[in-house]
């Protein structure tokens, strides 16, 4: 923490708040992953950390390095855009795979496919 002493207080407070908030949201999502009962409930929980949690930490990082180097350091936007694009894709793929496996085994948790509906 050698460089952090140069950071003014008006920038240090939002950086600290955003960082702790993002980490707390990630912890909330992971506890949800641990506590919820079925897979289809669990698949919702980690998205809390994957969208808002990592967004808060990236905002804190952007603010920290921008104020520290007195120029705009915005390369964290790359991770933001990448997470926003890929999180729904991966979780939708995973939910479809789980639905396919459950239906194939005749698991009563999931509804049977509709007549004439699209093949899952």
């Amino acid at each position, binding site marked *: 923490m050698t460089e*952090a002493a140069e950071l003014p207080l008006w920038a240090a407070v939002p950086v600290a708040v955003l960082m702790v908030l993002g980490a707390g949201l990630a912890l909330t999502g992971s506890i949800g*992953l641990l506590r919820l009962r079925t897979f289809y409930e669990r698949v919702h929980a980690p998205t809390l950390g994957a969208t808002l949690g990592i967004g808060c930490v990236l905002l804190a990082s952007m603010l920290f390095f921008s104020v520290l180097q007195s120029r705009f350091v915005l390369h964290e936007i790359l*991770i933001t855009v990448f*997470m926003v694009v*890929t999180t729904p*894709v*991966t979780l939708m793929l*995973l939910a479809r795979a789980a639905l396919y496996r459950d239906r194939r085994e005749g698991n009563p948790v999931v509804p049977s496919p509709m007549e004439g509906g699209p093949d899952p």
Partner: protein
Amino acid sequence: MSAELLSWSVLIAQLLLAAAMGCAGWRMLAGPRAQDRVLALDTLYVNAAMLLLVFGIRTGTTHYFEAALLITLLGFVSTAALAKFLMRGEVIE
């Protein structure tokens, strides 16, 4: 003053993220079915990327950013490949 505030908040954020990674790791080891394990692995990737970003704030260097970007990229590719494997039984058809 600001250095003290930042060092404490970095420590708290690191502890919270470590607890989050512990929860995801437990679900990956315990998880009743394969899709639970893949979901926990994806969560673990996201938490590791956040932990690396917090490390970057702690040390004041931007080198950790590249590692975080690589981890998010690898997380997307591995989760997509594992979901394809669970669906079809093979990755490249």
